[in-house]
Structure formats: C-alpha cells, structure tokens
C-alpha cells in the first residue's frame, strides 16, 4: 500500500493503476479487482494535495473501477449479457486499452531515455570558425534598421490564438463533479421531479454521465435529493429535497470543498479508505440507488 505519489511529478491515474496491476505480476492468478480498487482508492486518499485539475480523471477511473468491483461483489447473475452487463465490459475494455497505451509509451520513453543517455556520452565539436576566417563572414546586420527590429518585436508579441482544447477528437472530459454539483443544485429545484435519463440527455461522453451520477450520489448523501427506482434497470427518479437553490453545497456532511483556498485541495473526510471500500463492497450496485461511500473529493473546475 506504500504507493507514494511524488510531487511535483504527477504521474496520472493510468500510471497509478498500471503500477498497481503490474506490480503483482508474480501471482497474477490471485490478482483481484477488489484489491486493486482498494489500493487505488487508498492511494487517492493519500494524495493530500491533489491538483484538482487532475482529480476528475482520477475520480472517473475510480468510478469505473468501483463499478467493476461492484459487479464482482454481486451474486452472479443468470441473465448475463444484459445491456448493462455489456456496458461494463465495454468500459473495462476501454480502460484496458488505455492502460496498454500508457504502458506502451512508458516503455517507449525508457528507450528514448536510453538513446539520450548514450548520446550524452559524446559531445559535438562546436568550436566554430577560427579567428582568421571571422572577418570573412558578412555583417548580418547590414540592411537591418531599427524599424525592422520593431516589426520583429510586434511579430513576437502578436497574440497567438489561444490554444483551445478541441473536444471533437478527444476522450478527455473537461467537466468536474464540483461543477456538476453546482449545476444540479441550481437546476433541480426549478425542474421538479425528474429522471437521471432526462438530466443526462444531451451529454456526449460516457464519462460525463458518470460525473453526473457521482454528483447525484453526493447530493443524495447530503440529503438534498431523493433517488428511487422501481426495479433493476428501471428509470432512476430524482426528486429535490433541499431548500433553496445552491444551498446543498454548504452541507457539513459532505466532502469539504475549501472554496476559499486559492489552490483547492481535496480533503479526505470520515472513515479511512479501507473502511470506505468495505462499505462499498457491502452495498448493492450504485445503480440501485444507494449512495456508495466512494472516493471523496470534489473537483473544482478552474477552466
């Protein structure tokens, strides 16, 4: 469990997961999703100063892992191959693919380091022209005026188009739980009883839906919403219980979001990671409408 996320080099969620999974290669047959999820969540909790621009990615992967683990905890289902079942396998495969990609580039980077290290054994000759030839080189400033310098400076200072993250071709989701929490706290009181499906209509990415789900669970835990479901895979009904819009975020029971701190930090609260994941293990799948005591911490989007 001694995984230390060393700052300032932040290695990212895939690194962490990869580390956890491949570390136990020796006895892969004993390897279980449970221990990996536990360790992942524990490592997450240890990151006291989690850069919150990064936290969302960690939480999203934690969500997938918890879902995988929840599957395993449930008694085996006879009606396998349901849509939901397929979805989780799909999610799993996606995660697996990204882990493989991450591992590939990790190994490629070792090769690059090796090349660099080898190359550093040699130094290039950079002595340049001997003095006797120096006079031959034409004066490079001939024909350059002060105005040319000004033009060059303006060229340098010209506002470059701000590099924008194009979401068109990436899987990276730039929506946070905190942001969604806020949005839902304003939207739900106005909207009246609704359903999860309706709330998430129009979301492009699966991960965005997960973020919405995590935010709803958080609201549920704080007693701000009521969630109900008539049966497995049935519509998840959402009803606002809180007072006025926006009040939900001040609930003391929830994870502490220190909105005043300039660099927002995740502050783990309540039971330790081990107990938390046990609580999770005992609970039915999250889609049954029970709030899991999942990894705490809420991301503040500083976009």
């Amino acid at each position: 469990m001694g995984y230390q996320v060393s700052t300032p080099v932040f290695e990212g969620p895939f690194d962490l997961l990869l580390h956890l999974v491949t570390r136990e290669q020796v006895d892969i047959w004993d390897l279980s999703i449970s221990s990996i999820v536990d360790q992942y969540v524990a490592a997450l909790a240890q990151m006291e100063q989690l850069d919150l621009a990064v936290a969302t990615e960690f939480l999203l992967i934690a969500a997938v892992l918890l879902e995988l683990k929840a599957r395993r905890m449930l008694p085996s289902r006879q009606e396998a191959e349901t849509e939901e079942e397929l979805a989780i396998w799909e999610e799993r495969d996606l995660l697996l693919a990204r882990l493989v990609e991450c591992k590939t580039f990790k190994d490629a980077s070792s090769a690059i380091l090796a090349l660099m290290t080898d190359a550093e054994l040699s130094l290039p000759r950079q002595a340049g022209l001997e003095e006797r030839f120096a006079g031959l080189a034409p004066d490079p400033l001939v024909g350059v005026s002060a105005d040319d310098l000004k033009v060059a400076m303006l060229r340098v200072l010209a506002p470059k188009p701000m590099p924008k993250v194009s979401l068109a071709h990436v899987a990276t989701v730039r929506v946070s739980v905190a942001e969604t929490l806020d949005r839902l706290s304003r939207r739900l009181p106005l909207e009246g009883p609704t359903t999860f499906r309706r709330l998430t209509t129009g979301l492009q990415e699966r991960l965005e839906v997960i973020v919405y789900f995590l935010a709803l669970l958080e609201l549920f835990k704080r007693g701000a919403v009521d969630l109900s479901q008539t049966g497995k895979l049935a519509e998840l009904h959402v009803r606002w219980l809180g007072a006025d819009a926006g009040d939900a975020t001040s609930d003391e029971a929830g994870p502490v979001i220190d909105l005043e701190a300039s660099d927002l930090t995740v502050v783990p609260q309540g039971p330790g990671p081990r107990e938390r994941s046990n609580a999770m293990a005992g609970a039915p799948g999250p889609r049954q409408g029970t709030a899991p005591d999942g990894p705490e911490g809420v991301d503040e989007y500083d976009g």
Partner: protein
Amino acid sequence: MTAELKRAIEAVLMVTESPIEPNVLAQLLEVPVGTVVSLCDELASEYREGQRGFVLARVAGGYRFQSHPDMAAYIERFVLEGQSARLSAAALETLAIVAYKQPVSRAQVASIRGVSADGVLKTLVQKGYIAEVGRDSGPGQAVLYGTTTLLLEKLGLDKMEDLPALGDFVPGPEVMEALEQGLRPSA
C-alpha cells in the same frame, strides 16, 4: 582527388557548429551528394580503425565531429554545462508520445496520459525538443506539436524514422494477461 575532397570535408567539419547536411558539402565541393556520403563513410571508418578519440557521426540529417563515447569520463570533467538536466518521467513520456504520434495536439497528449500535459509540453518547447508544427484543421484549431532537429541531436539520431518501432513496446502477453486479470469484473 578523393584525398583532397576528404581533407576538405575534414577541414569544414572542424569549423562548423552544427551538423552539416551532405548536400551543403556537395555544393561546396562540387560533387554529387552520393560522393559526399561515401567519402564521409570512409572518413568515419578511418577514424574507427585508427582508434581515434573522436568520431564522424551522422546526426540530425548531417555530419559532425564528436568525441568518442568511450572517452566520456574525460570530457565530463571538462564540460560542466551542456549536459542537459535529466527530464522527468512525465516529460519523457510526453516526449515519447509527441515523437511517435506527431503531429499531435495537447489534448491528444493529455488524453493518452490521463493528465493535463500543459506544463510538460511547455517545458519541452522551452528546451527546444518539440515545437509547434501546425494547427489542427478541426474546430478550435488546436496547436499541433512535433519534434525538432535539436531533439535528433540530443538522441544522436539521424532522423526520426530511426527510432525503434512503437510496436516493439506494446506489452507482451504476460503483461496483457496481468492487466486483463486485474480488471476482470466478475470472479
């Protein structure tokens, strides 16, 4: 004549500060590029056979003199700066992604790594290892990054295609199995 050409190449390489492309030498010596290449090959093997303390290397598309790697211990004491500070693991991984996926956008790099790549990309640009090489044609016109000649020099490579194939690094069956096993949803 060949001897004279080889001497000229040696002389010019002695006074240049960056790798010289064979076509520049060809123009200067008024011989075909192929001749330059084979003359440089000859020189390189003469130094090798003569067990010289320097080598004639083909780097970043050109030729240059450099110290023999075996002599690293001696030159280290002489050159304190110049040895670049080690790149962090994050920077190396990002560099690998740019090297193999170029041209690549910041968002694509972030997507592969699972974390924002802004700071690391900035560092690599500042070091001159990567540079903006264009803009995405899609919405947002994201900046696209690629590797530089300086990186080739730092890697001691002639061209980017000389990097080992990315396929060589795809995890083997044992690792795949471990990954799969670790993420199996049902027991």
